[in-house]
């Protein structure tokens, strides 16, 4: 099937092309129907990303990071799951595209790397065969050509003696090697969008750094847009150009990585930054966790979803309990969704938060 965008959408595309990012997510909503009610896993998420840029999405478990990324790939599961909003990839809306069209883009134009490379590879099939399969589903080539490609890729991601290891099974690889093989598989069709869902969480620290370096190098080589989903701000600092902080299915802060680390404005971002371990500081006091628990996504609090856990909620006026804040631009490329007055945010960060970071 060669489904093109509908004529009306195509006409709209031409007009809107100028101000649309390579990946442009607009008001994305992912809802899981359950017997207890609708779980709003992603609740109106919007962001854009250009090729060659890396976006780090951070947030607690259940903040909607993974649900959002699976929706981008069209991999949401379950008959009671709905995806609404717009996902524009290279001028094509994936939400309204046919499932068959999205499938043909999956693995070719957009690829994904998963958290645990042991469970993410089929235990019964050889590593090489799994890469060959990923390549051949989008390219009409012989097994031999595809195998050559698989060996090249394994070699490129740093698997020693790739020509021999191509015939290994996943359980014969170490964790780091499996993640490299996973990356090789994701890169087999030169995707322009690469989504990495906690790619280093299951790996030890030295291997983590190697994998991040590899992703950095590959991005320069292939000029892809990369989304890296993590709860590890260290990973973000290492690799990302921009950071998107998610809370309760929505973006609360989005900006260039230097800004987010040097001048964050959202109290939740402050909380995340305060909970990082710093080895270069004396241990003055205990690590501070964000108090409270993430909200239920079935009954998200009214107003700012973070207000029940926010230390500064009483400085933000009554609107914080009734009105959902929208993302406002506070600096070029830096957007924050918070009811606190800008001056108050800047002052609190400078006087109260920054000294203890």
């Amino acid at each position, binding site marked *: 099937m060669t489904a093109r965008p509908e004529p009306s959408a195509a006409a709209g595309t031409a007009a809107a092309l100028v101000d649309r990012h390579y990946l442009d997510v607009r008001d994305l909503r992912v809802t899981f129907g359950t017997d207890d009610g609708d779980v709003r896993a992603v609740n109106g998420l919007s962001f854009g990303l250009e090729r060659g840029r890396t976006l780090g999405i951070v947030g607690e478990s259940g903040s909607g990071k993974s649900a959002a990324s699976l929706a981008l*790939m069209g*991999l949401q599961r379950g*008959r009671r799951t709905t995806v609404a909003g717009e996902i524009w990839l290279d001028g094509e809306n994936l939400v309204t595209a046919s499932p068959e069209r999205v*499938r*043909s*883009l*999956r*693995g*070719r134009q957009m*690829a*994904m790397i*998963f958290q*645990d490379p042991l*469970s*993410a*590879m*089929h*235990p*019964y099939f*050889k590593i090489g065969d799994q890469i060959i*399969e*990923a390549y051949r*589903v*989008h390219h009409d080539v012989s097994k031999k050509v595809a195998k050559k490609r698989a060996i090249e890729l394994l070699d490129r991601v740093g698997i020693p003696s790739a020509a021999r290891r191509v015939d290994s*099974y996943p*359980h014969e690889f170490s964790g780091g090697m499996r993640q490299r093989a*996973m990356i090789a*598989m994701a890169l087999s069709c030169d995707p322009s969008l690469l989504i990495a869902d906690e790619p280093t969480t299951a790996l030890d620290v030295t291997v983590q750094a190697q994998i991040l370096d590899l992703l950095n190098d590959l991005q320069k080589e292939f000029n892809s847009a990369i989304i890296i989903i993590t709860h590890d701000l260290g990973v973000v600092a290492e690799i990302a150009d921009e950071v998107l902080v998610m809370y309760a299915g929505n973006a609360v802060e989005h900006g260039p990585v230097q800004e987010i680390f040097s001048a964050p404005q959202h109290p939740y971002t402050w909380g995340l930054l305060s909970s990082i371990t710093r080895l270069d500081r004396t241990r003055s006091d205990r690590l501070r966790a964000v108090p409270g628990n993430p909200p239920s996504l079935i009954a998200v609090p009214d107003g700012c979803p973070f207000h029940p856990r926010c230390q500064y909620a009483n400085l933000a006026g009554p609107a914080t309990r009734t009105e959902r804040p929208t993302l406002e631009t506070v600096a070029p490329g830096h957007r924050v969704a918070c009811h606190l007055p800008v001056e108050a945010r800047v002052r609190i960060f400078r006087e109260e938060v920054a000294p203890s970071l």
Partner: protein
Amino acid sequence: MAGFVIRRVLGGIVILWLISVITFLLFFLVPKVLGSNPAILFAGRSPSEAAVAGVTKKLGLDQPIVVQYWHFLAGIFTGRHFDAGPDKTWCPPPCFGYSFKNSEPVWQEITRALPVTISLALGAAVLFLLIGVGIGILSALRRGSVVDRAAMTVALGAVSLPVYFTGLVLLLLVSYQWRIFPNIHYVAFLDNPLLWARNLLPAWIVLAFLYSAMYARLTRASMLDVLGEDYIRTARAKGLPERTVVGKHALRSALTPVVTIFGLDLGSLLGGAVLTETTFGFRGLGKTSIEAISTGDLPTILGVTIFAAGFVVLANILVDVFYAVVDPRVRPT
């Protein structure tokens, strides 16, 4: 791999030997301990003292148990003479003992009953694999749908109904009431394949009804497990068509445990489907052993038990080899 197979076969032989020792002990030692003489069982109804003594000597029951066992074991490979009857009887190898009740070598009884059991087991197996696994896969793919719920409800009922109930009801209806399958008896496949199939069909259905239900539930559970695995998500993320995701990636993992259970089930079915054979009056291994038990025909019980155990051991070996072929993680290197 060859070494692995040889090791498993040798292990299987050891197990069979152990089983033969244990059954032999049970059947020849226990009567001794309890004070009843097996010779009395062989000597006919209310025999005289002298007759019992004669039979005891002729059967070698006065010899030490080890010697008796040796004769039994050697007989399997070399054959042996029995002189319990008016004439000396030659029991050719493989001699699994001699049934004095039926005046024939146990091996002959087994070879007569075996085609019946095999016909019953294989026919039913084809049916329940196709139906059970098919329904299981369909249910898993349409989890929560009307089809799934209906199939699982019927399956729950089917596993709860014993074969002697469903068998009798079916017999009553199709054989006596509607006379679609009148006069059910076993006909050898080579004599008349059509009649063979027609007469076996009700028994196949009864067995397949029970086993389909078990396999549908097993397949569904296994398939649902696998469909939730990360590597299935990976397969989808690669952009594979859904039929490849399900047909290649999911099915291969999901059917592995099903094949394992199937191997063991088939092994025990080949040892005789006692209830089904009895209900339908087929003289397979199951019915033969039931009759042997009710008449105290110890040599037959012994022979059939060892023979049936052989099927189970063989099935186990095949399942292990199958596993090693399919799953590279358990493959011996």
